[in-house]
């Protein structure tokens, strides 16, 4: 006799081989766990819509961490709470995929609370299924943000107290207040009626994504008989008696009929467009540099330090960009040590002819000090035979060490003479390059117009570089 058969949906694997060598036909979930019912509902919907081959289920951390054992779809397992962020990446890079973020209440409402809000607020075209069982199931029944007031868990052995832990979070209500989501509904798994309701809601949430309507969120109140320490049948009654009065089962938002299908523009950017956006269009071909220059270049471990506002960090950027333009390897890293609290700043710059491992210059061979505290802080760290450049306009003492080369230059006064005290950093770079002759100081002229944001100050900065060069020629010619 011919019969219509209702059985395991096609979007499940025939055998759950990822589960291990035995019990490849049953889930790892406890008897009576709601995850199984939901998996069935989801797989059935995916099969019916014919999208199982282009679906990706993002499993969370929680009991459903192993959801990828079961779904014969694309699968990825995200770090705790980050499923919406991972799902965003999947959807953006594969706009035709159907991405389902499957998360529990510990994952979504606690550690991933912000990820879900931001994804919802962006209106990502994805489906989020939020399994709320008011407890941390996988780790043994600890209190979750959704745990009910008075509910006993291993971490609230006398019951959740409002004064101590506040009220349970209603995620659907929160998400429904956002403008972007198209569909937010809470359902339950307690009887035929609510299971059918869940089926309809999940279908709608997936259909919305297929129709490119935007963000859909279905919260499902699901039983955790093991965590609640009651039987499966009683746990469904417990949801009805205790959870449903606090977490009303209803639609909170449904504007899918009013929303147009939307697509994010996909385009590739040419190299020229990127340069235009960065304001670097004027940059020509890569500079030709003699091989001997690169080979003979002595690695510069620079530390540039001073007050905030003296252009310490930007001096480092300009120096690094200049050396990069000469085909050298460079790093630049600003340092925010505790001395930052006193309003000082410093950066480490490395210029080298070979690849750089660490960007830190603990022992610089070039130290530029724009103020006194910086000299106090870093003088002892300089390598023997290193170079120290002292801004004598502000630093009122001499360098104590006698095993280093020192340039004393009134950087701030020179810059002030040009009408721009903030150009002291450029005076310094001009002096440094003229003194060491490592790179022609004129190379700075190619970089400064690009690096300085206030274009009307470019000329003054170029003059400042020349003043630095002039000071070295007059005082330190060698």
């Amino acid at each position, binding site marked *: 006799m011919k019969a219509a058969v*209702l*059985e395991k949906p096609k979007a499940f694997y025939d055998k759950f081989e990822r589960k291990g060598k035995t019990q490849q036909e049953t889930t790892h979930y406890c008897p009576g766990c709601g995850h199984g019912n939901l998996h069935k509902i989801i797989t059935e919907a995916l099969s019916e819509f014919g999208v199982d081959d282009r679906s990706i289920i993002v499993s969370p951390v929680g009991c459903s961490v192993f959801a990828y054992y079961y779904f014969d779809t694309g699968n990825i397992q995200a770090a705790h709470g980050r499923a919406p962020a991972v799902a965003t990446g999947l959807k953006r890079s594969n706009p035709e995929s159907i991405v389902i973020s499957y998360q529990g209440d510990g994952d979504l409402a606690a550690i991933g609370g912000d990820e879900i809000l931001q994804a919802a607020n962006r209106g990502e075209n994805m489906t989020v299924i939020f399994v709320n069982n008011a407890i941390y199931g996988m780790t043994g029944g600890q209190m979750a943000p959704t745990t009910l007031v008075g509910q006993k868990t291993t971490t609230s052995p006398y019951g959740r107290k409002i004064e101590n832990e506040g009220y349970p979070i209603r995620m659907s209500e929160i998400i429904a207040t956002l403008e972007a989501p198209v569909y937010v509904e809470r359902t339950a798994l307690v009887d035929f009626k609510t299971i059918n309701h869940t089926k309809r809601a999940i279908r709608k949430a997936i259909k919305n994504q297929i129709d490119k309507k935007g963000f859909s969120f279905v919260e499902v109140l699901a039983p955790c008989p093991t965590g609640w320490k009651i*039987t499966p049948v009683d746990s469904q009654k417990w949801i009805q008696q205790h959870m449903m009065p606090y977490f009303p089962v209803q639609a909170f938002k449904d504007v899918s009929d009013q929303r147009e299908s939307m697509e994010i523009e996909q385009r590739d950017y040419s190299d020229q467009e990127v340069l235009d956006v960065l304001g670097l269009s004027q940059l020509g071909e890569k500079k030709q540099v003699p091989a001997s220059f690169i080979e003979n270049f002595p690695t510069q471990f620079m530390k540039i330090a001073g007050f905030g506002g003296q252009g310490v960090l930007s001096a480092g950027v300009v120096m690094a960009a200049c050396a990069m333009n000469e085909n050298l390897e460079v790093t630049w890293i600003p340092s925010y040590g505790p001395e930052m609290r006193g309003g000082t700043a410093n950066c480490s710059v490395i210029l080298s002819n070979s690849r750089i491992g660490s960007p830190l210059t603990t022992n610089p061979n070039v130290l530029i000090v724009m103020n006194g505290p910086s000299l106090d802080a870093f003088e002892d760290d300089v390598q023997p035979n290193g170079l120290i450049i002292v801004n004598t306009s502000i630093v009122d003492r001499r360098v104590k060490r006698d095993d280093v080369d020192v340039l004393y230059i009134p950087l701030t006064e020179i810059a002030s003479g040009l009408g721009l005290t903030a150009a002291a950093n450029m005076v310094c770079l001009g002096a440094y390059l003229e003194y060491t002759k490592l790179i022609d100081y004129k190379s700075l002229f190619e970089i400064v117009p690009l690096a300085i944001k206030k274009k009307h100050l470019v000329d003054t900065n170029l003059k400042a570089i020349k003043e630095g060069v002039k000071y070295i020629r007059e005082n330190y010619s060698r």
Partner: protein
Amino acid sequence: MTEEYVEIDLSLPSMKVVSNLCKGCGLCIEHCPKDCIEFTDKFNELGYKYAKYSGEGCTGCGICFYACPEPGAIIVYKKVREKK
């Protein structure tokens, strides 16, 4: 509802609990509107006292299928609807 057609030697409608996939949670028994599913006294390979169809009363409504958390533990067979 996923409907496939199979050849079967059963009086229809009917249902089957795959005994070694049942975890004995009892939800199918709880929700069956015709009370035609019952527990056995025997233990299956997983160590649970499993559910089974009593043999009569099934209307093919499918409630047990969706109430059951296990993907493959319950199969429901119904009469093929006459297409007009």
